[in-house]
C-alpha cells in the first residue's frame, strides 16, 4: 500500500452552498483510473468528512459516487444558515481546503 495525494487524482476539488442550510463538496477525478482508485480505496465515507471538518458524523448528510462526472460528492450541515450572524463565507466557496490534505491509499498493483 502507498498513499497518493488527492490532488494527484482529482482536477476539481470545491465547496459551495447547496441551498442556505447545506454545504456540498465535489471532488471530480481526472480520469476513469483515478476515479476507480478513489472508489476502491474505500476511504470516502461520512467518517472521512466528519473527521476533516471536526463535526459529528450525523451532520454529514451523504457521500455519493457519481460516475457520469467521475465524481464523489459529500454534503454537510452548514455551521449556520448562509449569511446569519457569525458567517465567514456566504457562498461557501472557500471551505474546501481540508479536502486537499486527503491521502488515498492505493495497492501497488492497482497503480
Amino acid at each position: 500500500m502507498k498513499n497518493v495525494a488527492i490532488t494527484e487524482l482529482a482536477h476539481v476539488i470545491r465547496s459551495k452552498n447547496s441551498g442556505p442550510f447545506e454545504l456540498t463538496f465535489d471532488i471530480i477525478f481526472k480520469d476513469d483510473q483515478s476515479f476507480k482508485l478513489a472508489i476502491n480505496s474505500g476511504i470516502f465515507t461520512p467518517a472521512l468528512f466528519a473527521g476533516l471538518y471536526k463535526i459529528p458524523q450525523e451532520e454529514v448528510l451523504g457521500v455519493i459516487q457519481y460516475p457520469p462526472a467521475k465524481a464523489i460528492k459529500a454534503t454537510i450541515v452548514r455551521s449556520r444558515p448562509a449569511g446569519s450572524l457569525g458567517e465567514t463565507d456566504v457562498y461557501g466557496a472557500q471551505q474546501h481546503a481540508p479536502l486537499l490534505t486527503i491521502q488515498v491509499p492505493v495497492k501497488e498493483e492497482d497503480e
Partner: protein
Amino acid sequence: MKKLTVFSPTAILGYGFPKESFFEGLAHNPDVIGVDAGSVDPGPYYLGAGVSFTDRAAVKRDLALILPEALKRGIPLLIGTAGGSGAQVHLDWNREIIEEIAAEKNLSFKMAVIPADIDKDYLLANLDKTSPLGPLPALTPKDVEEATYIVAQMGWEPYSVALDQGADVILGGRTYDPAVFAALALKLGFPKGPALHMGKILECAAIAAEPGSGRDCMVGVLDEEGFTLFPTNPQRRCTVKSVAAHSLYEKSNPWLLPGPGGALDLRGTCYQQVDEKTVRVTGSAYVENDYTIKMEGSRLVGYRTLTIAGVRDPIFISQLQEVLEQVRSAVRDNFEDTSNYHLEFKIYGLNGVMGDLEPNPVPGHEVGIIIEAVAGTQEEANTICSFCRTTLLHYGYEGRIATAGNLALPFSPSDLPAGPVYEYCIHHLLPSKPDFFKPEIVEVG
C-alpha cells in the same frame, strides 16, 4: 422529429454576455429565450430588504439587447425570479427597467407579470401543512410574522398559461430555475425529463461549457428523446464531462433533483459527445410526486457596523485571542445596558475564512481583523464598534512594548456603518397547486 430550440443568453440577468455570442445564438432561430434572474447564493439580505443583488445598469444593459431582438423576431422572452429574489418589490424593480427600455426604444408588447408572494394570513392558516426543507426547525408563527417578504417558487405551469394568453414577455417572481426554459416545451407536450433537465443546465448558461462562464450564451435543442447543448462562443465547447459535472453543482444529490410537483431522475441519463462542441443528453426521467412549493423568507436581525484593522506586532499576535476576549469583556462592562448586541472578530490569517471548521488555526506574521458589531439600531452598532475599536487600539496587553497603538487602520473614517442585517427564517415546503400563481397581463408601450 419535433424539435424546439431554447436560448439562454446569460447565467443571471445582469451578468452580461458578449454581443457576438448573443447574435450567434439568435442565428439558430430559437423558439424561446429564457433568462434566470435570481439566486439565493448572495444571502438573506436581498430578499429581506427587497433589493436586487444585481446592478440596475447591468440588468438594463442585458435587457436592452435581448428585449428588442426578441420582439422583432417574435420570440417569447421568459424571465424568472425577477430582481434576484422574486418578491413583488423585486418584480416591480425589474418591470420598471423593462418599461424604461420600452419607452426609450419605442417598443410596445404584451407582458405577463406573475407574482410569487405568499400572503402571511394564508400561510399562518396553513402552518401545520408546512415542512422544513433541509436541516432546520419547523416553521413557527413568529418566523412568518417577522419575515419581511415571503416568496414561493413557481413551476413552469404559470408561464405556460401566460404563453396561452399571448404574452410576448413574461416576467415571473420567484421561479424554479429550469421553468423559463422548459415552459414552452412542456406546453407543446415534450416529455418532462429531457425538457426540465435541459432547463436545469441552461439556467446557468455557459457555466456548463469548457471553459465555463456565467457571462456567455448557450443553446439547447430539445426533441422527444433528449436534447443537445452547445455554447455560441467559438472559444467554448460542451464536453460530456462539463455537462455531466454540472448536475453536481450547488446540489446535494446529482441523481435526483427535486422541484415543484416532482423530481428529475438522472440515474438513466446518458451523455454523448456529438461533435467538438456539442453534447447530446438522453434518458433523463421525471418522477411526479405531490405538488409542493418551496417558500423563502428572511427577517431583520439588526444593523451592522464594521472596522477593518491589521496587526503586525508578534507579541500581540501571540496572545491575540486572549486580548480580544478581554476587550470583549470591557465592551460588555461599559455597555451593560445595551442589552442585545452581537460583537465579533473575524481574524484573517488565523481562521477568518473557515471559523470553527478551520483545521489549522495558526496566525501568520500579520493578521487582519474585522470588528463587527450588530445591534438593534445603527447608532447602537456604531457605538459598540467604535468603543471596541478604541479599546483594542490602546489595550495594554501583557508584555506590550509597542505602546503607541495596537492596530493599523487603513481607512479614515475607520468605522463603516453597513446597514440592516437579515437572516433566513423560512426555507420550507407547502403543499399547493400549479395554478396557485396567476399571471396578470399588462400592455407595455
